[in-house]
């Protein structure tokens, strides 16, 4: 019965019996079935396992990533606020010393030097102090360099500080020839309307020291860059101070999942305006680059973090996940392999049994029709035989009452010959009719030795044509068994016939009977034919298995024998050796109960 709805399924998993066209397809069918079953079960196990593994992989990755980004933002903000505080402190100190009315006082170099010294006590990196008038001309200077009367009026920073009141420069070397930056404040001249400027130069290493003291436990690098992305402090890994930071030349490869998780990150969105996070590849190493502008300065704070993929927790997670995945796969493969083999074997056995039952069920019918045919033939032949018998008898009668005549003796001999031939025919038809009785399944007391002789009578002709000698080794004191004569005949004919076929020509068959136990009779049929390999022996009782040429054997004989013997409550086994011959051994109970 085919169900078109499950076409795909039946294609992968065809019922094994579908593939059985001949005996040789039997194993193929079950192998196919077993393979299909394995594939389906593997898919059923593998797909969910793979989905779960991938899900947990991605889930854990995004968890780690989110945590990483959170940490990065937190670090960035902490560092930002620390640096901003420092700048603000510096700024307020300078604002404080440059009170509006101190302009005249500070023009005095003595006063300026006192201020410079005080500042240097507090901030050793302060390099010098200058007072610049409203025209951009330096009016006073305290510091190690001879920088008197410098004109700054055309410089951008000067214009900036006048406009904004406060200015911080980027780090540059200038004519001082060491990296430094400038903090300047502009103040109103107490009498005039114009502004004067206090300019403090701070050595770059002040900023460096500060960045260094922030210390970075989480990030892999921290540094400042100017608006042209020149490194203002020394990065550990990503460039050199005073040079353009390499990270800014790398393409941003921020993945969609990160953008998505950033969009959902409260810390990030709250500070969205001044924090940026990029994902980049530096020296084949994925990194996060977090950037924020520092308030009131020209600088950007940069934090770099190498990505989690190379972190320990991620590596151990991946190892564990892979181990679990592979061991699940391995275990399920073994279980599936065994399960499908077991199911297929089970199926094969029950199919075989069913086949056996079918054959056994069919057998009585077959026997019945063969029996009817035999009976019909015997009866038809019997009638003319009876006529011949009577006619010859009549002729003999007449000769008897007739006086001597020429050839009387020869005539009598001829008639005797006819009578004895009739007698032989009679025996043949009786035997045929005897076989016909097999159709009627019934049990009776049977002398096994008799049955053996009957069977051999049938095969003796063919055996003798092939120069096969049939010997008997029958135990005379054999107990009678209660069994079905016809079926016993069939069993013995099948096996003996196989032996004749196997030998071909020139050989011997021995039929032997023994009482081996009080309730068991043993029959052995031994031939000195070519024997069978172990492989063939394994299959001889399988239906449709035959070693005979195509068309010569149905492959059913021994499977019927097997079924019949089982039905009669007996057992059969075969021992065979290639080149030496084969022995079938049948054990039958005295009675079936």
């Amino acid at each position, binding site marked *: 019965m085919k169900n078109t709805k499950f076409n795909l399924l039946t294609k992968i998993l065809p019922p094994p019996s579908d593939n059985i066209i001949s005996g040789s397809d039997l194993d193929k069918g079950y192998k196919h079935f077993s393979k299909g079953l394995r594939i389906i079960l593997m898919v059923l196990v593998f797909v969910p396992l793979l989905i779960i593994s991938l899900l947990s992989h991605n889930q854990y990755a995004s968890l780690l990533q989110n945590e990483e980004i959170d940490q990065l933002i937190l670090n960035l903000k902490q560092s930002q606020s620390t640096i901003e505080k420092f700048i603000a402190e510096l700024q307020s100190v300078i604002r404080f010393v440059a009170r509006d009315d101190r302009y005249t006082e500070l023009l005095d170099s003595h006063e300026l030097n006192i201020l410079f010294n005080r500042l240097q006590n507090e901030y050793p990196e302060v390099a010098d102090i200058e007072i610049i008038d409203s025209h951009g001309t330096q009016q006073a200077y305290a510091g190690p360099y001879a920088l008197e009367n410098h004109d700054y009026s055309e410089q951008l920073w000067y214009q900036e500080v006048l406009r904004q009141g406060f200015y911080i420069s980027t780090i540059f070397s200038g004519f001082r020839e060491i990296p430094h930056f400038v903090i300047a404040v502009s103040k109103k001249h107490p009498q005039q309307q114009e502004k004067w400027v206090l300019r403090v130069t701070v050595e770059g290493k002040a900023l460096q020291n500060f960045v260094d003291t922030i210390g970075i436990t989480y990030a892999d690098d921290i540094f400042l860059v100017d608006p042209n992305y020149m490194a203002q402090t020394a990065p550990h890994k990503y460039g050199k101070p005073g040079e353009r930071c390499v990270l800014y030349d790398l393409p941003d490869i921020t993945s969609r999942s990160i953008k998505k998780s950033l969009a959902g990150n409260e810390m990030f969105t709250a500070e969205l305006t001044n924090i940026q996070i990029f994902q980049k590849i530096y020296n084949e190493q994925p990194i996060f680059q977090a950037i924020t502008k520092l308030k009131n300065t020209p600088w950007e704070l940069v934090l770099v973090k190498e990505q989690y993929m190379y972190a320990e927790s991620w590596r151990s997670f991946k190892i564990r996940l892979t181990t679990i995945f592979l061991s699940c796969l391995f275990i399920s493969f073994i279980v599936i392999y065994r399960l499908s083999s077991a199911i297929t074997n089970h199926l094969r056995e029950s199919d075989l049994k069913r086949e056996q039952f079918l054959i056994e069920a069919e057998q009585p019918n077959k026997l019945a029709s063969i029996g009817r045919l035999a009976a019909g033939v015997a009866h038809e032949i019997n009638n003319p035989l009876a006529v*011949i018998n009577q006619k010859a008898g009549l002729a003999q009668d007449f000769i008897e009452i007739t006086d001597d005549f020429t050839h009387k003796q020869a005539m009598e001999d001829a008639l005797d010959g006819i009578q004895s031939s009739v007698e032989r025919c009679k025996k043949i038809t009786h035997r045929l*009719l005897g076989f016909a009785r097999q159709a009627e399944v019934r049990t009776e007391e049977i002398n096994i030795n008799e049955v053996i002789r009957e069977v051999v009578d049938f095969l003796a002709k063919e055996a003798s044509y092939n120069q096969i000698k049939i010997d008997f080794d029958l135990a005379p004191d054999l107990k009678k068994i209660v069994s079905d004569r016809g079926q016993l005949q069939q069993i013995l004919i099948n096996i003996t016939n196989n032996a004749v076929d196997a030998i071909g020509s020139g050989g011997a068959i021995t039929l032997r009977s023994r009482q081996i136990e009080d309730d068991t009779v043993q029959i052995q049929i031994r031939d000195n034919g070519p024997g069978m390999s172990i492989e063939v022996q394994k299959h001889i009782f399988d239906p449709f298995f035959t070693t005979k040429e195509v068309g010569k054997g149905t492959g059913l004989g021994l499977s019927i024998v097997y079924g019949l013997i089982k039905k009669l409550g007996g057992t059969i086994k075969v021992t065979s050796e290639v080149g030496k011959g084969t022995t079938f051994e049948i054990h039958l109970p005295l009675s079936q109960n």
Partner: protein
Amino acid sequence: MTKTKLLIIDDEVEFASTLSQRLKLRSIDATDVHSGREGLDILEEIKPGIVILDLKMPDISGIDVLTAIKSFDPTIEVIMLTGHGSAGSGIEAMEKGAFDYIMKPVDLKELLDKIKTATDKRNHTQG
């Protein structure tokens, strides 16, 4: 005591006539007919003491003819001719009242013995 008459009923004409001829040669008053119907029709006329009856005939089966004969005259002894190798059908016939059965092809000596026994039995019961 009148000589016992014998009737052979068998559809195989050659067999029946030859057997009848051979019995006559042995001084047995034998008549042969070739169907069950004929056999039953001639019963009244011949009044046989022994009937040799074929089990298998095309018009009426031997068993039915046997039953009819026995109901006509239970003293008539019937010897069944069976074509079967099986004794089964002969035994079945004996259960229905046949005196004995003999298998085809018939061994004349055996048949003569059975006829003699049947005649003896008949004479004994009648006497």
